[in-house]
């Protein structure tokens, strides 16, 4: 049986394909302005390694902000549920998931059996999300991939006092103009993001050191943010090999009937 999971995020659309419940292929495509087309592109690509076509899919589940926009016959599922399932399939016994996406951050606390115990979501304000990081990268003229490693060279605390993306942008531009070292500004940016995420971690009641916490989403590739977050949590977070497909995997697991009903 071929089952598919789609995660149509604000910035990226992820597709995961399972054959008989086992990960068989995955792919990603930019969501741009057409989530439906991105879903089809990603799915065709994910199916390629199986030599299968979209018509061969027997069940599909979609999640993410664009889950209701797609034209494929996929059942919608809650983001929190998909993140929880994806995490506990990769890491049985995980304590929780921190999903740091493009426009939203979700923190899910899991009970021992991989079920959702509590969660907290940031969806009103872009502070602490991928959009915030992108805006700061642009304001500083530093590629997003280089921000994390560069920030770890920081030697001085330069806090970013504005919470709002729009205000933080001008604050950062002012700091750059006043010749503040880039690595110190970057560290300030990462601390600002991490403290927003930590607020959600606290609200979801996620313990810092009681079992493994999984970090996924685009921001989990930034070592600067992870390091700040670990300091705040007084614990460690684990980033899976493919941190961005976790929710799509969860969706695919629901489609294949392994999600314990959804």
């Amino acid at each position, binding site marked *: 049986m071929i089952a598919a999971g789609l995660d149509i995020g*604000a910035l990226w659309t992820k597709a995961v394909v399972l054959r008989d419940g086992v990960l068989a292929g995955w792919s990603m495509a930019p969501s741009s*302005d057409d989530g439906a087309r991105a879903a089809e592109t990603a799915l065709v690509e994910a199916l390629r390694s199986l030599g299968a076509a979209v018509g061969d899919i027997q069940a599909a589940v979609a999640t993410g902000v664009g889950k209701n926009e797609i034209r494929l016959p996929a059942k919608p599922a809650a983001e929190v549920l998909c993140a929880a399932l994806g995490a506990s399939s990769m890491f049985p016994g995980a304590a929780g998931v921190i999903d740091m996406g493009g*426009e939203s951050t979700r923190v899910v606390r899991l009970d021992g059996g991989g079920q959702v115990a509590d969660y907290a979501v940031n969806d*009103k*304000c*872009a502070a602490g999300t991928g*959009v*915030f990081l992108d*805006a700061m990268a642009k304001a500083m003229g530093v590629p997003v991939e280089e921000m994390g490693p560069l920030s770890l060279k920081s030697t001085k605390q330069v806090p970013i006092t504005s*919470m*709002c*993306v*729009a*205000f933080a942008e*001008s604050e950062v*531009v*002012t700091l750059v*103009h*006043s010749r503040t070292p880039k690595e110190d500004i970057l560290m300030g940016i990462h601390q600002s993001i991490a403290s927003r995420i930590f607020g959600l971690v606290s609200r979801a009641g996620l313990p810092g050191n009681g079992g493994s916490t999984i970090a996924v989403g685009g921001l989990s590739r930034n070592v600067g943010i992870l390091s700040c977050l670990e300091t705040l949590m007084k614990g460690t977070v684990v980033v899976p090999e493919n941190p961005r497909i976790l929710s799509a995997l969860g969706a695919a697991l629901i489609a294949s009937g392994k999600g314990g009903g959804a």
Partner: protein
Amino acid sequence: MITLGVDIGSLTGKALLLRDNEIHAWEIMLTGPDSVETAEAVTKKVLEKSGLKLDEVDHVVATGYGRKVIPFAKKNVSEISCHAKGASWFFPSARTILDMGGQDCKAIRCDGSGKVTDFVMNDKCAAGAGRSMEIMARLVDVALEEMGDLSLQAERSVPISSTCVVFARSDALGHMRRGASKNEVLAGACEALVSRVRGLLKRVGMNESFVISGGIAKNRGVAVRLERELGVKAHICYEPQIIGALGAAIFGRELLEKRDKMGKKA
């Protein structure tokens, strides 16, 4: 007696010379990355305009978010006090004042002498500040000064449901892709700002004698919608961006008068 008020905001710097109790000259310019340089440049310009020299000015008071670093200011006063003072100079009946600049928004209550009795402020989120208008104007590629009038030409407005201006920008982009016009997007942006501001005004308490100051007062799209929503007329002076600097200059004058009186007593 000549006093100077300097108001360094996030987007513009303002300087105003007050001769006795009359506005002598003023100047507005865009703020650079350095508050001190902006303050010096705008002061130089206003002095040139009036033909005065800095040492002929009896007192200098600074206000605005860059007020604490201006080297030639002898005192700094919060922009809240200055806006109440300046608004009362133009409109002695003023009791509720909305001051919105690029980076924050304040709803102020004051008494008959222009003294602040209460205020609420948003400086955390751009959604309720002038910055949201800058972002939306840039999105549809119209000048900030034109957006208000253009928004009033729209027959309908697009609903902008997101609070955060970053998300609102994506909302607006989506509406445009589905065929909404520039003006309809601008109308939606003005409405969104009005609904945020209304909350602040309610919290501080609305009085019929209502004044709008700061750059936003020049946006008719916001002012007209706010009047409609609140059911009151908004008093707006001929140059609402100088009210803070005016208030600062008045504080300078009052301070000197107080000093003179004490001097005479002694």
